[in-house]
């Protein structure tokens, strides 16, 4: 961040396409990752790791939704249901067939991709808000199916207990272990998405989002593009749902209801539509905001609590603060946290000679 290029000396396409053109940023990224993977689990308390784990799961899901909504322009509020599909696929495979963890995760993604593709079929004919309603229908249909088909849900309580994941014979138990485990998948999801966006398919997604008729004129098959976007996005959602269930130890569809879909939509809108960095920032923001507002209000409330019962008031205040902060952030930067971040970076890039 606090460094400057001395000029542009790119001589090949590969250099031009590189994610990190400068050695310093490559190294910086490496150091940051090492810090996250080694130092954080050693020093952070289990409580902090719990929050980080929830963020990491949200990162995977948010990147998936951003590929569909941010990059391809297809608004979806079926994210929660897609995650549920992944969760129950993984749960059924591991509990009934005793499938190893390494199979359940891609299988969860593949199953969800299939379901997502089917849900995406109407996207050829309908756009915008109308498609949103179609995905909303998918959310409710999937919820209903899981609730009523005990073959999927494993019983009328619709809850399947899941054993902890086993990797190379090692069982993952503690928060720190889960942190490293989830971080690996979050990094994998990020790298894959970064590369996808720079690929032929990624460019096709963006062309379809920006102007679908123009995209068709330059030879992009819109139907294929949209369906592939649905499939990839759902794959991510399915993996996120499976990871979440492994983390919780249970698959339960009540954790994947409509409010979850809305939360994910909020993550990518606040983070920045079409931006992978934005997905990560948004996931962290939406997961951390309730925690931070709660802690701040508790700290503030503690000062005034003499004689007044504030315990009933704090949660209400938190809701007000939560809503206000989201509005303030969006007013300050409608393009999301990602843009805010880039503004800061660009400012420091030339600082102190910014003219």
């Amino acid at each position, binding site marked *: 961040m606090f460094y400057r290029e001395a000029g542009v000396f790119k001589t090949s396409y590969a250099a031009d396409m590189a994610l990190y053109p400068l050695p310093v940023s490559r190294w910086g990224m490496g150091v940051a990752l090492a810090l996250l993977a080694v130092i954080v689990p050693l020093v952070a308390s289990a*409580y902090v790791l719990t929050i980080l784990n929830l963020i990491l799961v949200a990162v995977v899901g948010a990147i998936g939704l951003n590929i569909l909504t941010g990059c391809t322009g297809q608004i979806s509020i079926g994210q929660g249901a897609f995650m549920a599909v992944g969760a129950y696929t993984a749960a059924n495979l591991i509990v009934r067939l005793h499938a190893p963890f390494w199979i359940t995760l891609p299988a969860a993604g593949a199953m969800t991709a299939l379901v997502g593709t089917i849900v995406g079929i109407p996207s050829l004919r309908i756009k915008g808000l109308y498609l949103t309603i179609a995905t909303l229908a998918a959310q409710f249909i999937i919820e209903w199916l899981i609730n009523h088909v005990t073959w999927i849900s494993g019983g009328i309580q619709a809850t399947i207990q899941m054993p902890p994941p086993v990797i190379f014979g090692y069982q993952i138990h503690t928060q720190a272990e889960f942190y490293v485990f989830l971080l690996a998948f979050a990094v994998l999801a990020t790298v894959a998405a970064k590369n996808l966006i720079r690929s032929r398919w990624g460019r096709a997604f963006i062309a379809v989002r920006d102007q679908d008729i123009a995209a068709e004129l330059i030879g992009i098959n819109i139907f294929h593009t949209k369906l592939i976007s649905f499939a990839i996005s759902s794959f991510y959602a399915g993996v996120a749902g499976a990871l979440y269930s492994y983390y*919780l130890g249970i698959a339960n569809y009540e954790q994947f209801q409509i409010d979850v879909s809305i939360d994910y939509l909020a993550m990518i809108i606040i983070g920045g539509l079409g931006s992978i960095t934005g997905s990560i920032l948004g996931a962290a923001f939406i997961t951390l905001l309730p925690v931070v507002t709660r802690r701040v209000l508790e700290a503030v409330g503690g000062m005034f609590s003499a004689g007044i019962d504030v315990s009933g008031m704090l949660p209400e205040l938190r809701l007000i603060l939560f809503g206000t902060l989201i509005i303030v952030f969006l007013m300050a930067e409608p393009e999301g946290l990602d843009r805010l971040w880039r503004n800061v970076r660009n400012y420091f890039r030339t600082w102190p000679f910014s003219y």
Partner: protein
Amino acid sequence: MFTTRRTVMAGAAAATGLRLIGTAYAQQKQIVIGEQCDRTGPTQLVGNVLCPAIMHYKDLINKQGGVEGYQIVINESDNQYQVPPAIEEYQREKEQGSVSIMLYGTPQTEALAPRLDADKIPGTCPGFGPASAANGARMPYVFPIAATYWSQAAAAIQYVKQRLGGDLHGKKIGYLFYDNPAGHEPMPVLQKLQAMEGFDLRTFAVPPPGIEVSAQALDISQRYRPDFVVMHVFGRAPSVALKALRGAGYSLDKVLGFVWASAEADIEAAGGYGAVQGYHTMQFAGVGDDYPVRQQIKAMFKANGQSPPAAMDSTVYYNRGLLDAALHIEAIRQALLKNGGQQPTGSDVQQGFQAIRNFDLGGLVPPLEITDTDHEGGGWVQLYQVKGNALVKETPWFRGYRDVVIKMIETAA
């Protein structure tokens, strides 16, 4: 370079966490209980009455000198009836040194149950959570401490049988339920009893969010015409269902509501006591003001120059909060008696829960007997009927088909 930003955020979170762990809980001779609540989520009508009761009971006990010389600290947190906050808060409550946790919400209980077992911290889920959690051998650290949905269903059929003359053969019973896992839960019990008693059972699902019940009510009153209706709905659905059934001309004297369809708030929302005359409600804690502990709490407020809080008027939920708090504190007392007054651990309190006998809090708590296998404490309920302007006690503590329920708990996976 996004990672830099995330590291900063993680650092900030770490700092917040550490500061909180270090706050004023270092005082001597304290025992900490973690409490989860829903103040702002879908069940806030319950939480905003139930959770203050827990705090009031704790204040009362502390004012009376605490438990065996220890002061009780209860840390409340709002999980909004969502799982991620519940997990995050559980972790914090654990780090605050909680020896027991008051859980809140069925999905939250399911998510936290494996963690409670792993961390050896007992948690209670009165009136919600999976019914199979009553199996102490399978889930040693989860305590429903009140009649589960299975016990409620069995007790309901027991009552209906008695009401319909002791024989259910050829009788028709309707089951009106909220269409979610909790609503489905009593079904296996009902089906088993149907086979045993030979009655006809038909189910009527109320889809979430449960604000439209008129079609089901018409179906019940005009087509199926059951001899009795057992109703298991939550949130706004109870009042809507009561209104719809009454509107369709079905006598509410033939309707029995499970524990989350049975509060004063439901009755008021359905049009007041006059509109739901005869309605039977099921309760796992005492109802009304006529308990010594409530008088003591009122006296405590009076001594501080305050009037009793409004939450106390909603006696059904308030008394359930008292039950939850009282059983935790009684479990801690039992733990202290057993370990000679040392700072108890989660395991000690778990043993304490399993030692609870003859603790009735002036009739507010049923004659519970929590054992190492039965964490439900017997599955006792009481019926109160809407009569005049009040909920009037209709039956003493009773339970139905205990053998059937126990067999189901034992075989549940």
